[in-house]
């Protein structure tokens, strides 16, 4: 099927994009296009206008200065997954980006498009939560920082306002005693996560001091697994897999995603198994990055 008719506008700058958004009725933003165009081709989405922000240079690229990595919203998954420095500094994000879709999707799809779209079965929501990201949005009133914990609200619903544009993502660097990982059970057909679990373990002398653990695919938006995080505190890094059994404890399991791909009950089972795997992989990486 083919998209319905619309007017295409190419934004030259962030300001230009905001102007277009303000002026146009029923406009959608287009970055890599891998969320919007497939939906338009099914006929489910049929906007009057499309604002292409994919050519705004100021929103592209990865910058590792100080103790934070800043990733422009237009940066493709491939650029993120291929960034060696990011693999050391924020492993979970690089790993999640490399798990998205396929080579062609990763060459075109962007981090900003993904996080703004907020598909609960995509891979970046959990990774952004586990990486403690800050999302920077531009709106008519200027720039605003959103803590990732306040960002994901529901399926395709975020804290971003209609007139706002996500311009970059900021992630703090892992310290030397930190290990992080993202593992997923993809749908064999779509490649989206039936369950994806991202984990960052902050350790101190072989013990978990704190953790950020989050999941995609379980609920209608990316969620922190706070019961797992609590259980991990004080645990030896050798035993972290045991905390996987708490994966569902902090979630309302009656609200688990439930469709032909996987029932809620099976998702709960996968969530435990994949949380265990994510924690163990993250634990294996503690201290590794520091030596690279």
């Amino acid at each position, binding site marked *: 099927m083919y998209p319905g008719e619309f007017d295409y506008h190419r934004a030259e700058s962030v300001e230009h994009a905001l102007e277009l958004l303000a002026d146009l009725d029923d406009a959608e933003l287009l970055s890599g296009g891998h969320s919007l165009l*497939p939906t338009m081709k099914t006929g489910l989405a049929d906007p009057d206008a499309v604002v*292409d922000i994919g050519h705004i240079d100021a929103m592209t690229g990865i910058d590792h200065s100080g103790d934070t990595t800043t990733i422009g919203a237009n940066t493709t998954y491939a650029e993120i997954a291929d960034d060696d420095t990011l693999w050391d500094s924020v492993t979970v994000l690089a790993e999640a980006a490399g798990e998205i879709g396929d080579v062609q999707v990763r060459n075109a799809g962007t981090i900003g498009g993904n996080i703004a779209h907020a598909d609960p079965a995509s891979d970046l929501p959990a990774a952004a939560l586990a990486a403690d990201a800050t999302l920077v949005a531009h709106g008519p009133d200027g720039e605003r920082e959103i803590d990732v914990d306040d960002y994901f609200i529901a399926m395709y619903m975020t804290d971003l306002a209609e007139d706002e544009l996500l311009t970059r993502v900021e992630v703090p660097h892992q310290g030397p005693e930190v290990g992080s990982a993202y593992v997923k059970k993809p749908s064999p057909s779509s490649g989206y996560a039936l369950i994806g679990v991202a984990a960052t373990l902050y350790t101190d002398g072989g013990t978990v001091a704190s953790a950020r653990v989050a999941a995609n695919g379980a609920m209608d938006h990316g969620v922190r697994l706070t019961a797992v995080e609590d259980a991990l505190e004080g645990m030896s890094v050798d035993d972290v897999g045991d905390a996987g059994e708490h994966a569902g404890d902090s979630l309302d399991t009656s609200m688990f995603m439930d469709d032909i791909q996987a029932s809620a009950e099976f998702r709960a089972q996968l969530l435990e198994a994949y949380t265990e795997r994510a924690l163990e992989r993250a634990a294996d990486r503690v201290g590794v990055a520091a030596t690279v």
Partner: protein
Amino acid sequence: MAEHDITLTVNGNEQELTVESRTLLVHALRDELGYTGPNVGCESSMCGACTVHVDGKAVKSCTMLAVQADGTDVTTVEGLDQDGEFHPIQEAFQEEHGLQCGYCTPGMMMTAVDFLDDHDDPGREEIREALEGNLCRCTGYQNIVNAVETASNKMGGSGAAAGGDD
């Protein structure tokens, strides 16, 4: 209905054309410019038969607006052979029977070329992962994997190994 005058450099030839906002790159290439190598196999961005290179990177031309690609360099399967000589990937697909009906083959090869540009001597599992976005219903993939391996040998380390996916 909004129309746009765009320029695409396809296989080295600069081409000017007028497209609707909604014209997909694959239809601009096939219906407007006559590059029928990239095929349309689905509309869900899953099959990869339409894969071309845009500015050197493999993308699905059914999931990109033609107007989005304005000003880019596009390579289709028609641009793989040079001076009448097959590209190593083409030779390898023929040698290994890496195709049967051939419908997925142009996209499959374009993905493989992009992959081999960045990966020296990949393992079979790695090749299978790299071809995730290209569906083939005929070959069972085994001879495709063989072909990519063979092409890698033919290309003999021309690509620099990329880091990233440790």
